[in-house]
């Protein structure tokens, strides 16, 4: 009962931390996906603008156009640094979720069941010899009577023997209760470990996450400005091409003119994507701040909430206990 109570107290406080970790992990995914896409998009749009510039620059006498002198907006080295940080951020979120979910691990459940079973089995083996030493008679659980009839010629003989199996000291129900208590003890030990070590790490990480979010916002702002200028340049050069080349055949001219609104639509979509990324980064910064506050126990919570967490932790142990009973029934039926 002590272990169970300790577990309820310890794991009851971990549940909100796990919820915040899951929320943080949920906020990381769109930032990682959208930021990676934004970097690739910005490079692609800039490349397109460089292609349009090439047409305008090709016939200039000074400087002589040389395609080898074109530069990428974000070279591979710079892009790679950003993608690596995003991958590390995703791993951080994954680790947090896995750790805060640690009290409910299948490995612990299996180990608790094995240890509970071993404790019960050991007690059942030792108990009869102790009872015998102290002259305590154990109640037989079941009695088996065996009658053997032998026919030899005209003679029939019958032999009857009776055997009894002692009732186990630890019943199946008690064994399940022991396994549940062992599981509760394991959860308590894990919770204690997490509560001792994790909050400090999350708190120490918060300034870095906030700095990363600020940096990503800064990048997103730079990309948005650059894309706007790149698109304007593309539209301007396309417009100039059509206006200067008045002798284009009507069909070609029509096709070239129709490209203009399509470029504007692409520009709006790119702008919208960066606005969405901006919101996603803001949400990411906020969820990590909340996670850090939760880890430090700074979030005001009502007694009712705390009681609900305790009730939920008790429910989890109850579910574990039920799973043991269910597996017992299956084993018995086989």
């Amino acid at each position, binding site marked *: 009962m002590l272990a169970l109570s300790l577990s309820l107290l310890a794991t009851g406080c971990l549940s909100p931390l796990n919820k915040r970790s899951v929320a943080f992990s949920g906020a990381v995914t769109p930032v990682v996906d959208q930021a990676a896409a934004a970097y690739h998009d910005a490079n692609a749009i800039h490349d397109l603008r460089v292609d349009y510039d090439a047409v305008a620059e090709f016939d200039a006498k000074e400087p002589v156009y040389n395609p080898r002198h074109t530069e990428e907006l974000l070279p591979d080295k*710079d892009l790679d640094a950003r993608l690596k940080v995003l991958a590390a951020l995703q791993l951080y979120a994954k*680790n947090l979720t896995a750790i805060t979910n640690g009290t409910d691990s299948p490995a612990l459940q299996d*180990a608790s069941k094995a*240890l509970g079973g071993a*404790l019960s*089995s050991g007690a059942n083996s030792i108990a009869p010899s102790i009872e015998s030493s102290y002259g305590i008679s154990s109640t037989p659980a079941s009695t088996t009577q065996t009658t053997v009839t032998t026919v030899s010629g005209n003679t029939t003989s019958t032999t009857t023997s009776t055997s009894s199996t002692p009732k186990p000291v630890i019943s199946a129900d008690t064994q399940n209760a022991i396994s549940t208590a062992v599981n509760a003890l394991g959860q308590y030990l894990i919770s204690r470990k997490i509560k001792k070590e994790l909050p400090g790490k999350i708190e120490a*990480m918060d300034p870095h996450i906030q700095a990363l979010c600020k940096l990503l916002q800064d990048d997103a702002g*730079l990309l948005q400005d650059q894309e706007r200028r790149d698109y304007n340049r593309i539209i301007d050069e396309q417009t100039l091409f059509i206006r*200067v080349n008045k002798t284009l055949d009507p069909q070609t001219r029509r096709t070239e003119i129709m490209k203009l609104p399509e470029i504007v639509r692409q520009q709006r979509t790119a702008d919208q994507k960066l606005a969405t990324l901006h919101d996603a980064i803001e949400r990411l910064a906020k969820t990590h701040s909340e996670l850090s506050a939760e880890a430090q126990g700074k979030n005001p919570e009502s007694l009712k909430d705390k009681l609900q967490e305790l009730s939920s932790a008790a429910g989890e142990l109850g579910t574990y206990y039920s799973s043991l009973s269910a597996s017992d029934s299956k084993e018995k039926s086989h």
Partner: protein
Amino acid sequence: MPPAPTIPLSDKAHATWQSLLDTIQSAIESTTDTAALEALNALYPQVDDVLTLDTEYKLHANTALFNTLLQQINDTNAQLKKLKTQIESIATEFDDAAKVLSAVEKVLALAGAA
């Protein structure tokens, strides 16, 4: 055209160059005159190149900051991995205890049989 400025641009200088570009862009958007368009389109990249160079410089400078942050996040991930292993070892220790108890039980059973 103003002389080529020092990169990176200060916020004030950036705003001034952007304002100049906006003026050129606005002029481009309000004329169909080919000669005017050609002149404005020739002017546009001279201003825009300054702003693009500034963007490229700032993106590159951010790369150094990203690398610093990468190191810090990697360090934390290594610590979290260690913590995860320690947590997993609690279940392993329970499992080991079950195996020891099971072995003890077998020895007791042998002793009882003797």
